[in-house]
């Protein structure tokens, strides 16, 4: 198993921390993981992305150019990463921030209205957990139980009271993610 994932959005959307939770979850399953962030000087408002790799074998490069899964949370991220999804790979986007159609026909496309949902839940902070839920529904690379353990590891103890709310958001994300397009993959191509 090797999953090369990019998560990309605005700074402050929880892109880096979502990647961190995913990496921690991988460790809980004794997998190899790497987490490599790319962002500008600003913490909020600028674009940020993180590459997370989860693998059964030692990871060669933490920096990759082509991804099994791209999670894009704003339009600049879609523009940047659409063409870097491997054929037959997965693109997940948040419907709130992206108004254009995905051009690629050879990838699976999923839409998750996480922003709308987090507003309904009256808690913008669980936005990234809803997305994470969507990802885990599509590609159950780690068990939910281990995600919760990973979340516990990555959150300072003073925030542990927020764990049930985060779990609820993950479960909600699993429910609301929708497939928009199934990849048209030519015979013989695997990734």
């Amino acid at each position: 198993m090797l999953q090369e994932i990019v998560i990309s959005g605005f700074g402050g959307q929880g892109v880096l921390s979502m990647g961190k939770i995913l990496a921690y979850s991988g460790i809980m399953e004794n997998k190899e993981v790497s987490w490599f962030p790319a962002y500008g000087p600003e913490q909020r408002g600028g674009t940020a992305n993180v590459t997370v790799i989860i693998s059964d074998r030692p990871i060669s490069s933490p920096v990759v150019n082509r991804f099994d899964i791209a999670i894009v949370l704003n339009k600049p991220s879609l523009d940047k990463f659409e063409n870097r999804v491997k054929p037959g790979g997965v693109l997940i986007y948040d419907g709130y921030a992206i108004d254009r159609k995905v051009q690629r026909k050879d990838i699976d496309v999923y839409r998750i209205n996480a922003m709308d949902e987090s507003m309904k839940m009256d808690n913008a902070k669980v936005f990234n957990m809803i997305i994470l839920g969507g990802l885990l529904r599509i590609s159950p690379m780690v068990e939910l139980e281990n995600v919760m353990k990973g979340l516990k590891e990555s959150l300072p103890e003073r925030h542990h009271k927020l764990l049930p709310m985060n779990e609820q958001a993950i479960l909600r994300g699993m429910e609301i993610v929708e497939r928009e397009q199934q990849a048209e993959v030519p015979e013989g191509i695997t990734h």
Partner: protein
Amino acid sequence: MSEEISLMKGNEAIAHAAIRFGVDGYFGYPITPQSEVIETLMEEAPWKTTGMVVLQAESELAAINMVYGGAACGKYVMTSSSSPGVSLKQEGISYMAGAELPGLIVNVQRGGPGLGTIQPSQADYFQTVKGGGHGDYRLITLAPASVQEMADFVALGFELSFKYRNPAMILSDGVIGQMMEKVRLPEHRRRRTDAEIREQCPWATLGKTPDRKPNIITSLELDSEVMEKNNERFQAKYRLIEANEVRYEEVQCDDADYLLVAFGSAARICMKTIELARAEGIRVGLLRPITLWPFPTKALAARAGKVKAMLTVELNAGQMVEDVRLAVNGAVPVQHYGRMGGIIPTPEGVLEALKEKVVR
């Protein structure tokens, strides 16, 4: 090694490893992309547990001179910074080399020249291994390629530095400093007692001792005859380090027709390129220098007879390539591929360069 596995950034690993190694003092000044070193030390507050001093100095110059002072007393002292900050430390490093003081300097490189960018780079290779400060000195240079090596090289850096009474540098970059990976931190060691330091560092300035002449730590010597003798002593020490302390890793070299040569983050990228190239039937291996000085000259010369060509991959305009060419001395063509200014090469980009510049 402890059994416990953590997930942390390379910069954080340096800080934890320093506390666990029993470092006596850290003196630094924040700069991206290495600020997590001092941030983690401040969070961990080791002055409450091991007694380690952690101090944010008023500048990089102050920090390196505090390292000089601590080292003169035989203490395990270190500093860290990123490229522009390390430029400021060069005078102090030269003085440490001249006064034969051990100490550890960490450079988490970013794009230059000048203030440059905050993104990763390896453009300080020349500065580090050719002498960024003045005078005929050498800096023991370790190039970590993983978060684990960030942790491990703290101990290794101090051991080599004290063994030879010479400053050592961990030459890292923004990729290795900022990325998170699994790491097994070293076991806690207690800090050395004053008596142990006195015994291990008979040269240190530890106050008056009636039964010996005073120890003097200085790089100044006004008599040229004596200064030349000092230099000869330094050079003899450098030859000894070159003979004994070369470290490198070879990956899939046995059947390789082509050899990639890369250190630090570039070596990790090359490891992915090897997977891609071998899937296409191109037999390529990697030689990764772990010590950049002393440089694995002999290992490269030995490989030169077995491959058709070499490609160095660096996050710079072509610096280590000069040392690789010197090592192989014309036996095989040596090309360079690099990205600059904070741009990170991709594994596919390296493969393309390999096909374009090297594979015949």
